[in-house]
C-alpha cells in the first residue's frame, strides 16, 4: 500500500512539473503571429479580400478575435482558429500587428 501511494506521489509530482512547464512555456507572440501570415500576408500585409492585419487598431483586432472565439461573430474559418489563443495572447498579437 505504501509503495502504491509513493508511486502515486511520484507520478503526480511528474505531472505537476510537466503542467507547470507547459504553462510557463507558452509559444511567443511572434511565433503565433507569423503562423497567421499563411493567409494574412507577411507581417499581416494581406492581399485583398483577405483582411489586412498590419496596422490594425489593437481594439479592433481584440474585439474581432474575442467575438470569433465566443462564436458571437460568424466566420466559417476564424471561429475554428480563434479558439486556440488565450485572451492575453490575442492582445499580444494585436500589439504585434499594430506595429507592422
Amino acid at each position, binding site marked *: 500500500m505504501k509503495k502504491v501511494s509513493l508511486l502515486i506521489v511520484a507520478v503526480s509530482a511528474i505531472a505537476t512539473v*510537466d503542467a507547470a*512547464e*507547459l504553462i510557463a*512555456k*507558452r*509559444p*511567443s507572440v*511572434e*511565433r*503565433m503571429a*507569423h*503562423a*497567421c*501570415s*499563411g*493567409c*494574412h*500576408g*507577411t507581417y499581416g500585409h*494581406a*492581399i*485583398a*479580400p*483577405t483582411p489586412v492585419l498590419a496596422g490594425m487598431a489593437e481594439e479592433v483586432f481584440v474585439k474581432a478575435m474575442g467575438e470569433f472565439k465566443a462564436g458571437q461573430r460568424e466566420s*466559417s*474559418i476564424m471561429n*475554428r*482558429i*480563434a*479558439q*486556440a*489563443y488565450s485572451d492575453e495572447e490575442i492582445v499580444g498579437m494585436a500589439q504585434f500587428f499594430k506595429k507592422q
Partner: protein
Amino acid sequence: MSGINRRKFLKLAGTLGALGLAACTTAPRKGSKAKVVIVGGGYGGSTAAKYLKLFNPLLDVTLVEKMKHYYSCAGSNEVISGWHDLDWLLRSRDGLQTKLGVKLVKAKAVEIDPQNRLVILKDGSELPYDRLVLSPGVDMRFDAIDGYDLKTSKFIPHAWKAGKQTTLLLNQLRAMRNGGVVIITAPASPYRCPPGPYERASLIANYLKQTKPRSKIIIIDAKTQFSKQELFLKGWQDLYPGMIEWISSAKEGQIDHINPTKLLVVTEFNSHRADVLNVIPPQKAGWLARKTELADHTRWCPVDPHSFESTLIPNIHIIGDACIATPMPKSAFSANSQAKICAAAIVDLLNDRQPGPPSLINHCYSFLAPDYAISINGVYEYSGTERQLVATAGGVTPMNADRQLEAKFAKSWRDNISADSFGG
C-alpha cells in the same frame, strides 16, 4: 521531445557535433556570420529562406534548387479541370534574391556531408553550412503497387507533382469519350495533400459534367475514411449526383495489382476498367533526405518540432512533406508554417539560445466547383506530455456554412500564400 528525451538528444547532438568539429576544417560560425544553406525551393524551402533573411538580414542564406521556376502543386487540380493554364502554377523566387539578398543557386544537390557540414553540388562544388534546411518534398513509391512503376507513370499519370504529369492527365481527360470511366486510386495515409484526391475527383466531375456528362469517376481508396468526407459527399450529391463513386478498402480491400496495358485496377475482391487511369501511389521523403539517412523506417524524417532539426543528424533541419510533424498534414500551408518556426529556431540556435515552444497553423481549402469550396484547419502546439505536436483548435467547414464565401477566400489564399512563400 522534452525532459529526458530532449536532454539525451542534446547530449547526443553535442557528441556528434564535437566529432564533426574535430574532423572539420572550420569551426561553426555564430550569429550573423553563420552560413545557412537551404535545399529545395518549394513552399517550405522558399519560406525558410525568406524568413531567415527577415529575422536576420545579415545572415548568409543560400537556396539551392535545380528547377528555375516552381510549379505549385497546390492549385494543380484547377489546371486539370481546365480553369487555368499550367503556367498559372509557376512561382518565381526572384524576389527572394533581388529584394532580400538570398543567394539563389540553380543546381542539383547530390550529396550532404554532415561531418564536414557541406552540400555537394552536381558539378562537384561544395557549399559549406552551419545550419542546413532540407525541404525535399516527396518521391513516389514506385515499388508499392504491383504493375505501377516509373516507366508506367509516363502514360498512367500520378499527377501528384505539378508540371508534365499535370498536362498528361489533362490531355487524357480531354481525349476521353463521353461515357468514359476515370479511375483515381488514393493511397493510405500519410501522403501529400490528404484531401487532394477528393478535390481532384470533384474538379474532374466539374469538367466532365459540362463536356461529357455521361462519364463517371471512381475513387479506389486504400483507406476506409478520408479528409472532409461528409462535406465532400454532400457536395458530390448536390453538384454531381451519380457521377462520383467512392470505394472504401473496407468494401474491396487493397489494390492487388494494376494491368497497365488494359488500364485495369484489380482489388482483392473485384476489378475495374478505366478509360483514364490516375494512380496516386504511396509516397516517401524526397531522395536527398533518404540518401543522407535522415529518414527512419517509416521513410519519413523525424524532427524536433521546436526547431525542425533532425533527431538523427545534428545541424540539419527538415521541413515540409518530408518531415514527421504529426498531426499536421503534408501540405503547402504546413510547410510554410514549419519554415517560419524553423527559421526562428535557427536564428536562436546561432545565437546560443534554446528555441522556444512552436506555434503552427495549417489551413487547406478544397474546391468542388468555381464558387464552391470547403476547408479544414488546425492550430498546433508542442505537448510536453504527448512529446509531439497536438492540435489545440481547428476543424472543418461547418455543414451550414457559405461555400461561396469559402471559395472567395480560397482564391485569396492562393495569392497570399504565394506572396508569403516566394515573394521578396
